[in-house]
């Protein structure tokens, strides 16, 4: 049973249909990859589902069966959805530790006003940051971290969202998490994605590196010019004639 589905998602930017009737079905405990040449609407699709941009048509169905025609960014956490960003969005003039504690603490104004992060929060933060081995950088200002370290921080933040007590996030979107990482960081992230899948999370991955796609994906959707070209398991999708043509550009 799918934990999240999209029905005929639609988005036009001044007349040009960037996402044109895309329907996806995401399942827990699986890594679903979205691939396609540049400008095929992969990132836009994710931005639609996570509320970054409003969609012009179609709907998103989430776990409890509620059908959504409009999603605001601050609602996706309550739907158990969280994400990383194509070009890193972190909080520069704050410490790395604060960047993680931020997502662990209370969300409404009054409770957060009277709450101070406790040892319990610190332990979670330590565990998560150690997993991404950026723990020793915890007191540095994020603006002094390298690009790779910031990418890892974003992933740590997504994992931290999963550790929250009030309802776990189950659907994790990774928008090109590997871009700009060193080889050993790539290995680290790959193992973590697999671990998250085994923990039963639903992972949606947007990535260009075909070896990683082959290694990680349980299910693949291919998008081209905003349309839903092909879907299926990794092997038969990647060997499909149409997909290769779309990539090589006719």
């Amino acid at each position, binding site marked *: 049973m799918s934990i999240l589905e999209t029905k005929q998602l639609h988005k036009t930017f001044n007349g040009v249909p960037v996402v044109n009737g895309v329907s996806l079905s995401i399942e827990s405990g699986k890594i679903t990859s979205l691939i396609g040449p540049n400008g095929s609407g992969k990132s836009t699709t994710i931005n639609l589902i*996570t*509320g*970054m941009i409003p969609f012009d048509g179609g709907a998103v169905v989430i776990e409890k069966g509620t059908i959504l025609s409009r999603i*605001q*960014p*601050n609602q*996706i*956490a*309550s739907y158990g959805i*969280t*994400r990383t*960003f194509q070009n890193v*969005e*972190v*909080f*520069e*003039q*704050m410490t790395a530790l*604060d960047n993680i*504690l*931020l*997502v662990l*603490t*209370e*969300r*409404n*104004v009054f409770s*957060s*006003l*009277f*709450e*101070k*992060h406790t040892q319990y929060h610190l332990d979670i933060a330590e565990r998560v940051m150690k997993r991404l081995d950026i723990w020793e950088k915890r007191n540095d200002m994020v603006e002094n971290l390298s690009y790779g370290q910031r990418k890892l921080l974003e992933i740590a*933040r997504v994992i931290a*969202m999963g550790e929250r007590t009030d309802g776990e996030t189950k659907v994790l979107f990774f928008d090109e998490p590997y871009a700009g990482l060193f080889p050993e960081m790539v290995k680290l992230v790959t193992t973590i994605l697999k671990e998250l899948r085994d923990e039963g999370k639903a992972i949606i991955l947007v990535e260009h590196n075909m070896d990683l796609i082959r290694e990680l994906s349980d299910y693949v959707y291919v998008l081209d010019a905003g349309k839903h070209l092909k879907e299926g398991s990794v092997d038969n999708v990647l060997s499909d004639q149409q997909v290769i043509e779309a990539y090589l550009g006719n």
Partner: protein
Amino acid sequence: MDYIIHLFILIGIFSILGLSLNLVIGYTGLLSATHAGFYGIGAYAVAILMKNTGMNFFIALLLSIVITVLSALVIGVVLSKFKDDIYALGSFGFAIITYGLMLNLQGVTRGPLGIPGIGRPELFDISFSTNLTFLILTLVLAVLVWWMTRYITRSSYGRVLQAIRENEKTIQFFGYTTYWYKLSIFMISAGMAAIAGALFATYITFIDPSSFTLIESIFMIAMIILGGLADNRGAIIGVIIMILLPEFLRFVGFPTEVAAQMRQVIYGLMLVVMMLYRPQGIYGKFKF
């Protein structure tokens, strides 16, 4: 010695203003020019309550905080929708509107005539009429505000404010409705400004709209930018320097009519130099 006490009372009052404004500008990154307006509303509320109903200062103070927070709600509901320079511009507009209302609602505020003869605060049988006793009252309230700002900035709430300053769009993806945070901090800082207003009204015993203009807000903004944004110590240092500087200039012996204008030149140039060489101010940890 009275003169030194007078200076420290002013430093106390403006520290409250600096600390509360730092919450909005330093921690949440919202350049608000309405602070002098709330400072004024607080002062007028206490003055009117004490004069017309003979209410004790401390009750009038609480009521004036409530009144100021409500007016901050009215303004904040609109302002919290804006961002960066549009927010600053909107706050410029509200500062002038608040000043206009103070000046023209003659029935309530006696307009430009101001309200003279405001009584000094009393608590049971202690009267704070001498400067020294008033200084103690000011310092007690200033320390209270210091403690409150420290508490807020160390709470999870304070961390979310900084996240709003850094990247308001992104923090929303993690379940935070930034609008309520921006509105609530705006109201909290206005409430604190009312305390400073109440102290100013009962210390000078006369208030009129000219002390609560847009220029006064700009003076407060200059103070915390000099001291350092997002750092309570910085706000205090900025206040001390900006209050002592004009007094210092009195003794430097500029020819009198030029002395007053020289202060403005120095304020202006200081802002420019700070932005060029040390935008985060002396102690600050945040650059705009």
